[in-house]
């Protein structure tokens, strides 16, 4: 009966959308590092911790008002308690565990084993409760029982909660965790040395009336102070035997400190590339819109130099460490992952439709570009893909891989050679216009329906007359180009005028065109 009731509840919760939505929201808020609002929650909690510590310090020599104490002992503790319970709740999916077990038993024609699933649930929840961070959380709630004065000291556990909210501290822990074995060995060595030296110094000195070491605690205190090379000098051995122990422990102390330092340094050195990579990945993930360039080469650098005028960020994917170094030396945002791996885009958490303006494939081989194109096409069909073509015979393969625009430098050079040798002046004029080397530029002006009259009227404005050339209008609907258009043509939304004029004049024209439309 109880089992049936539990299964029904589990199915209800599993299919209840509001319940799942709320649970996902709290999971994101508490655990998902990439959730955009998590950082505000973290800042709020860190603020509470700092306030709590301030109240503790203030209470040492000052009488605090009743409101402050209520706030510290009840409100903050209550917030921490709620946070603890929420984390306990979102730690695992209990309803799914019940359903899985139920369906498993049903499939095997067995009776649903409620005790088994209960055991599994308790085991998982216990795992959470005994995790170091959860223990710190529960200790930080302790000041709630403020009547017990000793619990006030537990406020300091709240400081340890910083590890939850500060990313850099979490990173520190993960770096040190990679050296768990070395650290444990060192700790055990230090503990043995402390234990041995404490007992030895106690045995050697405790019966000597001139010696300050009278108790085992004195001996332990002296050992710790000496082994970690602090050496206050308040307790010193007076016997030859005691001093011999001191010499031994001083040497061991230096070894402990140097080994500890080297462990930390080597842990950081090993992880530094990973940390850097994470930093770049974080930076890219936060971009609202960007160009994605696959592959770094001298051509990539030149393309980026041109695209920088667009003020749109550029993210490069490159896996060759040497090229990554070169690109980063140029101050470019490079992610050191393979552009042909789906894992890269999952790490990048990229939403192609919303974030990526275009993907430009600039690997130094057609094979790599095709491979990357196929990977991206698995994720999105709509994003425009541009690729360089290294060998003309691969053009069709690039096209089949879903690349929208293929740039063949050999063909361009061939075409340019023709015009350069036949009409060199005309070529120079077009080149100067396109390269924006002079103040006169060729620009696109996007038009809207009903703009015809205003557009052509402005051309007769004294500011633009004889100084502003309209090469033609590109009709969006029919994809035709109307050269030297007359005022009778109907402009529709999406049509584009191609104009040649001074850059400032083009900007002024755009402003006047849209200002008049608003009126």
């Amino acid at each position, binding site marked *: 009966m109880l089992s049936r009731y539990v299964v029904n509840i589990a199915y209800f919760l599993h299919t209840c959308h509001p319940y799942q939505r709320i649970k996902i929201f709290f999971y994101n808020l508490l655990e998902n590092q990439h959730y955009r609002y998590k950082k505000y929650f973290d800042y709020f909690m860190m603020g509470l911790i700092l306030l709590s510590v301030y109240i503790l310090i203030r209470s040492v020599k000052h009488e605090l008002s009743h409101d402050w104490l209520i706030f510290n002992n009840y409100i903050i503790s209550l917030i921490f308690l709620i946070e603890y319970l929420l984390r306990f709740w979102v730690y695992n999916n209990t309803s799914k565990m019940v359903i899985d077990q139920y369906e498993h038993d049903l499939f095997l024609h067995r009776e649903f084993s409620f005790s088994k699933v209960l055991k599994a649930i308790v085991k998982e929840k216990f795992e959470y409760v005994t995790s170091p961070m959860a223990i710190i959380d529960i200790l930080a709630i302790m000041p709630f029982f403020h009547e017990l004065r000793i619990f006030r000291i537990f406020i300091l556990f709240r400081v340890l909660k910083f590890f939850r909210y500060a990313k850099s501290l979490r990173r520190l822990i993960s770096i040190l965790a990679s050296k768990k074995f070395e650290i444990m060995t060192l700790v055990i060595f230090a503990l043995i040395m402390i234990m041995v030296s404490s007992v030895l110094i106690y045995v050697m000195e405790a019966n000597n009336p001139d010696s300050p070491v009278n108790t085992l605690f004195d001996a332990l205190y002296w050992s710790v102070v000496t082994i970690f090379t602090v050496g206050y000098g308040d307790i010193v051995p007076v016997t030859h035997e005691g001093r011999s122990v001191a010499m031994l422990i001083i040497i061991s102390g230096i070894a402990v400190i140097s080994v500890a330092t080297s462990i930390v340094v080597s842990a950081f050195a090993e992880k530094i590339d990973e940390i850097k990579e994470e930093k770049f990945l974080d930076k890219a993930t936060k971009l609202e819109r960007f160009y994605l360039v696959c592959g770094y080469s*001298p051509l990539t650098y030149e393309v980026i130099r041109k*695209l920088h005028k667009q003020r749109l960020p550029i993210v490069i994917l490159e896996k060759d460490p040497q090229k990554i170094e070169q690109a980063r030396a140029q101050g470019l945002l490079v992610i050191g992952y393979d552009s042909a791996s789906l894992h890269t885009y999952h790490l990048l958490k990229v939403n192609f439709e919303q974030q990526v303006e275009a993907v430009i494939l600039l690997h130094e081989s057609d094979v790599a570009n095709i491979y990357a194109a196929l990977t991206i096409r698995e994720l999105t069909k709509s994003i425009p893909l541009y690729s360089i073509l290294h060998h003309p015979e691969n053009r069709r393969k690039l096209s089949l891989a879903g690349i929208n625009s293929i740039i063949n430098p050999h063909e361009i050079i*061939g075409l340019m050679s023709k015009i350069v040798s036949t009409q060199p002046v005309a070529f120079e004029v077009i080149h100067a216009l396109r390269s924006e080397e002079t103040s006169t530029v060729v620009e696109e002006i996007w038009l809207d329906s009903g703009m015809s009259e205003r557009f052509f009227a402005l051309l007769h404005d004294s500011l633009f007359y004889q100084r502003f050339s309209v090469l033609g209008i590109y009709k969006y609907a029919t994809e035709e180009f109307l050269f030297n258009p007359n005022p009778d043509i109907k402009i529709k939304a999406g049509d584009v005028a191609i104009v040649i004029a001074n850059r400032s004049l083009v900007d002024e024209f755009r402003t006047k065109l849209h200002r008049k439309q608003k009126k």
Partner: protein
Amino acid sequence: MKQTCAAIFGYNEYSKQIIEKIKGLYHNVGVFVLTDEELLIAQNHGVLADKFDLSDHWQTIEERFDVGNLVVFCALNDDAENVFLTISLRATFENLSIIALAKDNESMMKMKSAGANKVMPILQIASNVISDILTKPIVTEVLHNVLYEDSDLSIMEVEVTENSPLCGTYLHDTHFKQEFDVILLAVVDNELGTTFSFASHGHNHHINAGDILVAIGYKEKLEYLKRWIRGEIL
């Protein structure tokens, strides 16, 4: 176009495209290669090529072409060899029209110093095309068609002759758009050397014989304008 023959040095993907695009424009097109390997590849592609070396012996060129009407494309694989070829040709033929390929801007400067009339830096050209396609797709497509494709719209440069009706007039005296249905892009001033000014810059240029006008329009309209500028029709 003054030249009637062309010589292409080097046989690779670039020179293949150059041969493909210019072969219809010149009466005599010659291909010259440095190595036996290139010679074999060219022969396999049905291209009759001759071998040459980087010494200063250019009798083959002088015998085969009228050097006064020759345009040379230096498209060797190696930039250093291309520079050497350019300087070697310039040292022998002072007025030869030399167009050279360079990998990047740095090599371009060297080619220019070596005496090339026009240098095409591959890296910069490819990057310009990519960024143009991304940022101004329509402009790029239209200009590509005007410059390179066999479309109705075309570009033309024409020199103002002594008996041209434009000679001695001002740029704004003629309404090219309304009267000829063409758009005048720029004027190269004969007196100011090779610098050009854009028609839309607003400066009312005084047109003299020897100035070069660059215009865009439909082919037949451009042809008509060319004849009018040359004073062939009234």
